[in-house]
Structures are given as structure tokens and as C-alpha cells.
């Protein structure tokens, strides 16, 4: 059955309507359509991918979002999120062309920790740099590896820092371990929920980084093909204005055009608060606002395209998480950008075999203040982008010692920068919050019986997590509503 791309839904009723054609929404749509559900995927924008997308500028293609696919494991490693994802979407590993990182590091004042997709490298780095802490580090890794609860359960979620401190006493090491995990997935400032920490520790340290040679396009193209094969309908430029609530359920989905469509179930990847704000009940004009659960963390990213490869400049690392401040401060900056810490990514530095990107890419991500960026008048916005671009590059170059500014300038072919303003536009997330709301809704349930969340606010992280979130919510709330227990029985020991 061919995939149908439309500007408006072709029917008036669906088994499932999915809000948002990001990684989570597309994965959910593939699962549901594969198993015969009549599915329509609604996307306000004209491009797919949500936060993980790409754009063209001056004849070049730039990835947004994706530095690396986390959760990479080689063939043969069983039961991990990547393997589950591939199986559930019937994707062959080769289709994603995942190429492993060359090696990354965490760089703090006076200390560096290298890590690769081989966990023993990080272990020996900790032993070298923090000899007194390595036993604690191993115990922490053991506790994290045993944390298998990806679907969430009841009970409180302890602070990640408190769990780390029960094993590790050096605050410097604690910050160094947290830095990449926070940058790649934390919606909370200063600390993480332990469950989120454990998911990210597995995704980044115990598993690892990879990237398709063609970047995010390879992933979205694969998902589009699967959508087509499964027979899902996809509407682009078709936003949802309102979810009409009646007697505790979504009775109708009102599109930006004013047209109303109905569905047995609605899966929303818009974010928990964003989704609840769409809900309107006839008798109660004030929707539940959930204002205390709004994410605030957003980012800027500078991109420099240069002649040659990073290696020509002496840069062999794939990703460098750096911090130049006394203590690592993961919080919304008072200024437009906090240039003291950040993430440098060289998309060239993955093992592409005999292929190589034709030009060098040098990306820097830093924490940013969304309100600040969004309230700037247009002219000032451009000027601030210029200003902060320079500052970010200057600070980041301190962590790339062999490279000086003149060499980079001489080789520079193009540059661009995106801000929380860009992110808000692409994702519709309040505050341009890349990792969504601080309080995750792990079971995806809402106050309404046929409305479920998927995507970043459901609590799975990274690009693999986003897709798994769509899959697991589709399975749990649509495909197997009552059969979870009997399925569990089959796979557990008698």
C-alpha cells in the first residue's frame, strides 16, 4: 500500500491520530499501521523529523539535533534498546548505516577522560585520573547496568547525584560523568532523576555513539520508507489546534484549518504540557495548564564548515564535552548563552570506512536562554548571533589546542547558528525545551482515557529513545491493552 502524503486527512475517522512527525511519532505510526490500524500522522511543519531534522543553506545540508545516535551496540549484543528498535520496526541494521565514533572525551580544567564504544576505556581512564575512585565507579556502573526498568513503575525517583555519591566521593569526577549525560538528555537543571541518569549512562557509556554517513537523513528516509510500506497516512503542514474533550476522552481533534477529525485514540508527541494545553472541555473553558512542569533548558548551536578534515587540524575526537568553569553548571544562563561549557562535535570523526564527508564540520552546542533569544528584535537577534558565535568558537578552541583561530578562519567555507528561537519553531516545545518537561510521564497516560503521550516527555532519551518511546506507547496503549501480563508470563522463568 503506498504511503499517502496529504495536506489534510483523507478520512473523517481514524483508529489512531498521531500528533507530530518526529522520530517518536513516525515510529508509533509505523507500528500501528503495520498491524492494520488506520493511522494518520499530523505534522504542522512541512518537514519531518521534529528536533532531528536537516535543512539546506547555500547548497549544503545541515543536520539539526543529531550529533550521534546513542545506544550503539555491535551486532550480536542482545536485548539492548537499539536491537529492540530495529526488531520492532523491522529495520535491518545495514539500512541505518551506523558507523562507530572514533573516540570522545570529557575535558574539564586540569582533567580529561577519554571514552569510546568500549566501556573498558572509560574504566581505565577513571583509574588513571581518579585512582581512589575506580572501585566506586565500577560499583556505580554495575548498579546502572542492572537498572532495567525502561517502562517505568511507581515510586519516587531518587536524585542521580545522591546515587553517584553513594559510590563516588570526588565531586570533580561526579561532574565529569554527569556532563555528557546532562547535555545529551537532561530536562532538569543541576541534577538528573536517577532513572534518566541510568538510561543515559547506558546509552552513552555502556553502549556508545554512531552516526550514519548521511546523518539524520538516512534515519528519516528509512522511517519514511517504512511508513509507506505499512500504509500510514501522513499530513504535512497540518497542525492540531485543539483536542475537544467530552466525558473524559478526546472526542475530536480540531486542525488548524478548523476541521474536526475523530479517532479511537490520540498519541501526542507535542510534550506533556503542550498537549494538555490543547485540550478544551465544553463545560470547562479553562484547560488544565500543568504550568509547574515546563522545561526551560534550551541550546544554541554554531556550525562552521571548513575546507579539509578535522584530522588535518589535529582534531581526532568525535565529541568533546567541555567545561571551563570551577564547577560544572548545567542550568539556564542569565545571559543569552553560557559559553563556559558545551559540546564540540566533528561529524567527520566517525569510522565511515573508505568514505569521508567532503568538507569539515565543526559544531558547538551551548546552554542558552530561550526568553532572551525570543524577545530580541530581528536586527538585534542577528547581531547577537554573530557576537555569540565568535565567543563560543573562541572558548571552544581552548579545548582544541592545536587549532588556532587564524587556521580555522582561513579554511572556513560557511557558517550558521541556530538558537532556541529556531528550536521553538521546529518543535513547538514551550521555551524551546529540547529535552522537554522535567517531570516525565513514563506510562504515557494523561487525564483523558484515549489520549497518550510519546516522545521526549514520556521519558526515553536520545534518538533511539525517541523511536522506542513511540513504539512502546503504541504497543502498550493501542496494540496490546490487556495482554501485557500474559506476554510477560511467556518470557519469564516458570
Amino acid at each position, binding site marked *: 500500500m503506498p504511503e499517502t502524503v496529504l495536506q489534510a486527512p483523507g478520512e473523517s475517522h481514524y483508529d489512531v491520530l498521531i500528533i507530530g512527525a518526529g522520530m517518536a511519532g513516525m515510529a508509533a505510526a509505523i507500528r500501528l499501521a503495520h498491524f492494520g490500524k488506520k493511522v494518520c500522522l499530523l505534522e504542522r511543519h512541512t518537514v519531518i523529523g521534529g528536533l532531528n531534522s536537516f535543512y539546506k543553506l547555500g547548497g549544503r545540508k545541515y543536520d539539526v539535533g543529531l550529533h550521534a545516535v546513542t545506544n550503539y551496540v555491535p551486532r550480536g549484543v542482545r536485548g539492548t534498546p537499539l536491537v529492540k528498535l530495529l*526488531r520492532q520496526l523491522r529495520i535491518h541494521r545495514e539500512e541505518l548505516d551506523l558507523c562507530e565514533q572514533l573516540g570522545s572525551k570529557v575535558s574539564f580544567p586540569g582533567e580529561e577522560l577519554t571514552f569510546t564504544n568500549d566501556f573498558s576505556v572509560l574504566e581505565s581512564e577513571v583509574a588513571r585520573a581518579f585512582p581512589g575512585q575506580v572501585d566506586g565507579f565500577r560499583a556505580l556502573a554495575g548498579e546502572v547496568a542492572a537498572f532495567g526498568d525502561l517502562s517505568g513503575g511507581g515510586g519516587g525517583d531518587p536524585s542521580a547525584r545522591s546515587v553517584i555519591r553513594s559510590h563516588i566521593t570526588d565531586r570533580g569526577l561526579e561532574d565529569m560523568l554527569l556532563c555528557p549525560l546532562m547535555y545529551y538528555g537532561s530536562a532538569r537543571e543541576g541534577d538528573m532523576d536517577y532513572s534518566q541518569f541510568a538510561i543515559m549512562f547506558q546509552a552513552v557509556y555502556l553502549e556508545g555513539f554512531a552516526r550514519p554517513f548521511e546523518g539524520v537523513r538516512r534515519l528519516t528516509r528509512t522511517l519514511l520508507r517504512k511508513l509507506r510500506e505499512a500504509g500510514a497516512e501522513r499530513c504535512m503542514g497540518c497542525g492540531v489546534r485543539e483536542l475537544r474533550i467530552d466525558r473524559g476522552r478526546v472526542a475530536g481533534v480540531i486542525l488548524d484549518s478548523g476541521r474536526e477529525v475523530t479517532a479511537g485514540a490520540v498519541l501526542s508527541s507535542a510534550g506533556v504540557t503542550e498537549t494538555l494545553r490543547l485540550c478544551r472541555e465544553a463545560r470547562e473553558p479553562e484547560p488544565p495548564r500543568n504550568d509547574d512542569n515546563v522545561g526551560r533548558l534550551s541550546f544554541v548551536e554554531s556550525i562552521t564548515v571548513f575546507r579539509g578534515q578535522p584530522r588535518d587540524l589535529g582534531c581526532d575526537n568525535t565529541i568533546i564535552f567541555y567545561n571551563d568553569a570551577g564547577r560544572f553548571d548545567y542550568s539556564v544562563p542569565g545571559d543569552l548563552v553560557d559559553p563556559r561549557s558545551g559540546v564540540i562535535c566533528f561529524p567527520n570523526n566517525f569510522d565511515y570506512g573508505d568514505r569521508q564527508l567532503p568538507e569539515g564540520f565543526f559544531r558547538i552546542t551551548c546552554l542558552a536562554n530561550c526568553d532572551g533569544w525570543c524577545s530580541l528584535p530581528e536586527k538585534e537577534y542577528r547581531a547577537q548571533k554573530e557576537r555569540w558565535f565568535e565567543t563560543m568558537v573562541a572558548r571552544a578552541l581552548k579545548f582544541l589546542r592545536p587549532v588556532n583561530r587564524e587556521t580555522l578562519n582561513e579554511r572556513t567555507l560557511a557558517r550558521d547558528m541556530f538558537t532556541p528561537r529556531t528550536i521553538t519553531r521546529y518543535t513547538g516545545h514551550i521555551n524551546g525545551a529540547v529535552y522537554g518537561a522535567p517531570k516525565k510521564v513514563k506510562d504515557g497516560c494523561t487525564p483523558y482515557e484515549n489520549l497518550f503521550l510519546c516522545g521526549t516527555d514520556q521519558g526515553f532519551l536520545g534518538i533511539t529513545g525517541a523511536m522506542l518511546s513511540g513504539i512502546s506507547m503504541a*504497543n502498550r496503549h493501542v496494540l496490546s491493552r490487556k495482554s*501485557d501480563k*500474559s506476554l510477560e508470563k*511467556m518470557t519469564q522463568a516458570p
Partner: protein
Amino acid sequence: MTEEECKQIVVKIIADIAPDEDLNDLKDDVRLRDQLDLDSMDFLDIVMELRKQHGIEVPEEDYPKLASLDSCAEYLTPKFLEKQSV
């Protein structure tokens, strides 16, 4: 439809779901989950693929009957035969 053909259908479904598993030396009388890395999501998919590809319904209380290839054949072959005779 013989029991052998029925087993082949199940193996083909597993091959679609889990292309990364080696299915060459599957033992018929040993539980699938003891030989393969299959979780509850994968078993749900076996049930749903049976319905999708062959119109065979497996009610929830019968899921345990899909434990091994032998038990699959014993349980599913009559269902396939019933389907053919309609």
C-alpha cells in the same frame, strides 16, 4: 498443512521479527525463549503477524501454547487446517 509446514511458517515469522537471530539450529521441543533472545514485545509480534499474515487468531489465554515449535505446531496446525477448509 502439515505440522512441519506450520513450524516453517512460525520460523519465517520469527526470522522477519528478529533477523539478527540464527534460526538454523532451532530445537523443536525446547522453549523458544530458552534458545532465542525474544522478549514479550517479540511474542506480541508473533501473535500479531499470525493474525496479519494468516488470519489466525490466538486468544490471550492461549499465548503459552506458543512456547516451543512443537507446541506451536500442535496448537496452530488445526487452526490452519480449519482456515483452509473454509
